[in-house]
């Protein structure tokens, strides 16, 4: 008896609340749903923007494409200017070298020799299969 009355009272009270505030609940749910949908979209958009703003993101689809400028030109310029290629003496002298690289050539080459086998010295390839500057 007790259990039955309890159930009955419980169900009846549930029903009563459902019937009396049904429209309000639905409205609330709809509002909450719309709001959450809006928040979710906002969140997604923010996340996308954050991903775009991330600093060390590298070459990623959806970002601005590179202009077809001559990437290798820099390297082609630097090597003969400061280090000399094919047995040619470099264009700039020791003084200019030190002014631009902040250390004399001997110190620079010494560090270069020391890091020659290190993984971080290797030139990497980016997503467009070009060598990274």
């Amino acid at each position, binding site marked *: 008896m007790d259990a039955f009355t309890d159930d009955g009272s419980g169900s009846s009270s549930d029903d009563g609340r459902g019937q009396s505030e049904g429209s309000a609940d639905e409205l609330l749910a709809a509002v909450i749903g719309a709001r959450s949908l809006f928040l979710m979209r906002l969140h997604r958009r923010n996340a996308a923007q954050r991903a775009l703003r991330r600093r*060390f993101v590298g070459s990623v689809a959806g970002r601005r494409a590179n202009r077809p400028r001559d990437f290798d030109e820099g390297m082609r310029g630097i090597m003969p200017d400061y280090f000399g290629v094919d047995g040619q003496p470099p264009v700039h002298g020791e003084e200019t070298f030190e002014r631009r690289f*902040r250390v*004399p050539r001997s*110190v620079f080459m010494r560090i270069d020799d020391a*890091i020659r086998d290190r993984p*971080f010295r290797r030139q990497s390839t980016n997503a467009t299969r070009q060598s990274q500057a």
Partner: protein
Amino acid sequence: MATKKLIEFIVEEWEPVYLRHPNDERVKRMLERNAARSMPGCIGSLDCSHWEWAACPKGLAGQYQNRKKWRSIVMEMVCDEDLYIWHFFIGAPGSLNDLNMLRISPLYFDVVEGVWPPKSFSFCVNGRSRRSLFYLTDGVYPKYPFFVSLYPKPITPAENIFNRPQEALRKDVKRLCGALPARFHILLHPGRFGSVEQMMLAGKMAAILHNMVVEQRRGRYVSHARMAAAAAERYGEPAAAAGDGHAGGAGDVD
């Protein structure tokens, strides 16, 4: 990323070589040089300078704010005449002054433990032989036996005579404070590293590279030839004069 790795590599590879106490031969040469410059027993001058930290987190702002209201970390340096850095301690918050800095410096610990300065050298001041080598400092540093600072208010001729070379030789470390950021501009502009550790690494790297350059150049500095000539010309006389002033007030250097 590669730059960070390079900095780490340079510091790991060369810190034990380029940032350490001078060996006996170097100490001997430094003593000879400084005796010729009328300051016998001096093994360098000591000073602190600040490096601004642009990326200092807000939570650390109070700690790292220095007396000029910008956020910085402190570098403590000892250098000799050629601006070779014999001691480089970086990474303390900018609110520390020279004295706090000294209290946490590895140099100070070495002195307290008796590891440094070496006791095997003797020099002659005012006709007496002394063994305690010292650094030149400015007035704030406490009157420890291994520090020699100025007479704050020189009155007697002896004090004046002593103050003059002291000031002149302490210009070395002041020159370093200017020359190091001038060569490596990373120390000139506010550091943008996210952590103190990165700042420390970068600072040490600059010091190491600077030492490499100095080591390369050392023999060719103009001052060497000039000072050698000057010392040969009037050897002995300025050392005696400085000795007078030194024994007069700075006291027990023994």
